């Protein structure tokens, strides 16, 4: 899934305008599509890795544009994130070629040609093991081979449990435990597990035979990252070799004893709505930060930290949090451990590369479904996903 592809069209007439269209049918049966306009060269060829798109879902030279610019097709459900639940099957993307520069009604036209591409989260040989042990709920992905492997705990934000990044990391050589801690039917506290749960998960990962117990790291997004930062900073028995935090609201939240959704509802002032009626929670979280007791002290972290920030994050004050965390660590002489990667115009949902970019989507809160504004603008956000992933893998390789 994180590998780039090459796409070439041949045997066209020279200087012929064509449209390339990619479509994907998600597990939820939604149709995603993207299209772009090209003109063949004097040899009748189009090379997506080198040529410029003249219009459509993306413009300019974008080798992977047909993936990250995928959007839900008009006429179907809207505002839903692309989520793959079954890691053992691929995402199947169909790419078709049409004559001329078309923008819609593709179904009424005959394609000139077509090809199919498979995108996988799990490499051959990676093992997927469901974990239900000592109350810990998650999925462990182990690379093929005897090991022992460096390992990672992987968590997401309040959206809940997702396996795809852990599967990818295992495909890159890390034993990775995707951990559920909120909104999961098998968890004791649906609104969020407390710190002791995470401690238990850490111990569990260490005890896996194929894991090299002294080469463990923490990788988290959003709220999950905030919890990891707390763990690394304040719990002496949790000593990761490194920590990656993506768009964490860490400067403003003390995760505490669980039940996060309930607490958030109590503590946060009413978030603002943007012009489209989408919820922007960032300022509400910023407002909470004024109360120092509630904010997270990161000075206790002993390991290298990689902070990934989308500057256009409208969900959490990611940039402010990162700055705060850096300052806290500098104050105790550990500023050299922090690497901050800040991406202008990137939003909250920094996913692995080539994931479709979504500026907002629906989100299920207890009692209601809202549309959350994540932020982020197409091309820069896609570039941020690609670059941050490369940097994450380099960082993990170096420290684990």
């Amino acid at each position: 899934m994180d590998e780039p592809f090459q796409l070439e069209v041949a045997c066209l007439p020279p200087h012929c305008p064509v449209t390339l269209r990619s479509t994907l049918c998600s597990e939820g049966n939604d149709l995603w599509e993207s299209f772009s306009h090209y003109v063949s060269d004097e040899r009748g060829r189009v090379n997506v890795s080198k040529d410029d798109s003249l219009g459509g879902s993306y413009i300019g030279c974008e080798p992977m544009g047909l993936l990250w610019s995928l959007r839900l097709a008009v006429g179907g459900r809207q505002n839903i994130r692309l989520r793959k639940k079954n890691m053992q099957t691929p995402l199947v993307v169909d790419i078709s070629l049409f004559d001329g520069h078309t923008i819609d009604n593709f179904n009424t036209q005959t394609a000139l040609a077509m090809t199919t591409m498979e995108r996988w989260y799990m490499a051959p040989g990676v093992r997927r093991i469901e974990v239900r042990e000592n109350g810990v709920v998650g999925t462990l992905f182990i690379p093929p081979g005897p090991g022992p492997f460096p390992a990672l705990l992987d968590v997401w934000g309040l959206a809940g449990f997702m396996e795809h990044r852990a599967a990818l990391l295992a495909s890159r050589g890390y034993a990775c435990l995707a951990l559920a801690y909120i909104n999961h039917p098998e968890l004791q506290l649906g609104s969020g597990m407390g710190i002791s749960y995470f401690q238990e998960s850490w111990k569990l990962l260490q005890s896996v035979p194929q894991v090299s117990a002294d080469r463990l790291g923490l990788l988290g997004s959003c709220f999950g990252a905030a919890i990891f930062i707390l763990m690394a900073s304040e719990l002496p028995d949790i000593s990761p070799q490194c920590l990656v935090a993506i768009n964490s609201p860490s400067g403003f939240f003390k995760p505490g004893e669980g039940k996060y959704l309930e607490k958030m509802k109590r503590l946060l002032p009413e978030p603002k709505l943007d012009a489209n009626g989408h919820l922007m929670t960032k300022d509400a979280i910023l407002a909470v930060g004024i109360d120092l007791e509630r904010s997270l002290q990161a000075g206790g972290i002993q390991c290298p930290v990689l902070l990934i920030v989308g500057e256009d994050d409208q969900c959490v004050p990611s940039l402010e949090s990162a700055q705060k965390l850096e300052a806290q660590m500098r104050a105790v002489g550990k500023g050299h451990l922090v690497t901050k990667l800040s991406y202008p115009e990137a939003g909250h949902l920094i996913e692995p590369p080539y994931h479709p970019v979504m500026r907002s989507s629906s989100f299920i809160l207890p009692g209601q479904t809202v549309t959350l504004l994540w932020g982020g603008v197409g091309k820069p956000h896609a570039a941020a996903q690609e670059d941050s992933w490369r940097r994450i893998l380099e960082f993990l390789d170096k420290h684990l």
Partner: protein
Amino acid sequence: MSFFGECKRIYSEEMKTRISPKITAQPTRGLVDEKIYIRVSNLIPNEKITLRCLLLSEDNDFWHAYGLYISDDKGVVNVAEDVCLGGSYTGTEPNGLIWSLKPVPGSRPALRLRKHNVFTPFLLNISVHKGHINGDFKDASSLALTVIERWYISPGVSRVEISENYIHGTLFLPPGPGPFPGILDLWGGGGGLVEYRAALLASHGYASLALEYMSTQNTSINVNNIGIEYFEAAIHFLKSHPRVSSEQVGIFGLSFGTSVALNIAAKGNRISPRCLVCISGSHAVKINGTIGDVFTNLKEEGGKIMVDENNHFIWKELILPRLADPSKKVKVGNIKCPLLLIAGNDDQNWPTVDSARDMENMMKAAGNEHLLTTLIYPKTGHLIEPPYSPHTRFSNFISAFNQEKVVVLWGGQPKEHSFAQEDSWEKILHFLYHHLYSSSIGLSKL
């Protein structure tokens, strides 16, 4: 019982703290003809290691290949660039771990690796072992392991079983509306329905029909009832298929299939192929009546059947005497389409090199030699398959014609034969593209 209880292993303290070697192989999932890139890192500098590739065939035999390497100063082995010091191949051989696959010691004899189900991949386990191991991996535990998949079919290609108008075979169609150029894919005297090459050709954009013309199971395809019209019907089927471009249909043959292709092309009637790929075959096989007659006649020329020191059959001299008799040879001077002729000069099964030379002479005399391209490869045997099929110098053979079970000598040496497969396939794809795609506008290819 918890999963931890199930997979408990004992690790020494030292093993747990050492950074384990890491092996990466690309592509993790690819077509069988794609090159592989294997890299091992996190080794000790200048460390002796052995790389091993292990595969379990559909017939339940283990095949393996291995190479001895020494890591560089950074503890890295890069198979595409480094020199292999021994094993099942030597030298700088990026794809050696695949093409030098052989049955593991103790296997049944005279095996050939072939894929029956094209919808599952070959799973290759590629492992790194400490030290230089010479072939016996029974007690060798690996330092690291990765798995790659090798496919004969790419995503989107569809498989259609054909048994209508008395032709019997499997059609593979590339994804998309088409129309596509078509290929009639013909194998040799082993008979049966062999699909993998047609599936691979479809993965390269050609609607390909793997045709069965000799069967021991399917009595409707009885060689005593089939003549050249059967193959012409197959071509007609392809030409009139809604997703095939009727002006762009060629024939791809190996061994006896090559003879069929030459017979059809020389006939010069409505069924005229656009181009021919002819591997390891001969024009000295004229099809006048049924295929059954042709096979019966093969032995009646006074040509020699020989065996080597292992009692493996050498059939290459069987039809050699025919080359001197014009009435026994296809009139290749009548061929009107481009012809790519491929042969190995260590072919022990058919007299392919002598036939190739003779064909050249005949076509020169007739004035159509500009249509002919000949590729003759040294130390290469009869079974010139798509890359990176393991080279088979001899194997069990059951003739579909008379069910004789023998061991046949095909010929060739692993390194040169594997090079021939890789090189000829590249040239075949170029040839097919040039004559079936780029010579006409209106067929778009993604």
